[in-house]
């Protein structure tokens, strides 16, 4: 199994198909990252809010 390209330039250009291939990989990478990060952020902000709410409730009591 060998690296299929002679240079980094050839790897990026891919005989003219590079634009399409790299665009796909970048879009996919962004979407997948978003799918992982968004629930993590939501969880964080939920826990924060929840803590705030319970503190408020305690103060009222």
């Amino acid at each position, binding site marked *: 199994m060998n690296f299929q390209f002679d240079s980094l330039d050839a790897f990026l250009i*891919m005989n003219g198909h590079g634009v*399409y*291939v790299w*665009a796909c990989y970048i879009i*996919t990478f962004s979407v997948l990252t978003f799918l992982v990060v968004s629930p993590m952020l*939501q969880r964080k902000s*939920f826990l924060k809010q929840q803590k705030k709410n*319970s503190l408020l409730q305690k103060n009222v009591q």
Partner: protein
Amino acid sequence: MNWQWFHRLGSPRWFYEKTQAWLPWLSIITLALLLVGGIWGLGFAPTDAKQGNSYRIIYIHVPSAFLALAGYYIMAISGAIGLIWKMKLPFMVMKAAAPIGAALTFLALITGAIWGKPTWGTWWVWDARITSMLILFFLYLGVIALQQAFQNRDTADKASAILALVGTVNIPIIYKSVDWWFTLHQPATIKFIGKSTIHISMLYPLFIMLVGFYCFYTLVLLLHTRVEILRRESRTQWVNDLAAGKQGSK
């Protein structure tokens, strides 16, 4: 027969606590598979004789499309379980599966369009495979919209579960579309019965990416479901304790 495991499976708290330990392992495995498969597919798999390098898009296009379909099953089956056994957790899984499925369907469509340009000479054709995938995308969006359309949680869950179930009609159409209609889209190259029409050196990285995407899907579905569990159980003691105790640690 002992059905205790089944009822425990319906407990959001049990699920939340149980899955905690899986997350790091699943993340590591997913990352490793996607990295290896991606680099192999991009740089080391041989160039296709007919399509040149543009075929390298297959390593993300096919796994996205696979998971877009598998994700629909998961969403519809969860909805069905929720309707039949009136359990809470399956509805949460169903709700979590909708945006993930929509994102993966979007990926399959957009990478397909970008692949189509150098290969077919066009970004888009209204043929059977592509149109049925677009319908899948709208079905996912429909479930997301229905979830938000009702004030009442139960009504929203039931309505979207029914939409998800009705939409399963579309799934066999997507699978069979390349055989039933004349289309630009190439027929399936990986066959479980019979000989695959893809060379083994191209198949290895594709297989790694497929497994990687399945792991990724599991991971993301867990993450989204866990947030949904917290939201819906926000009035319970255990969620309060969790918020009070673990704040800042993660």
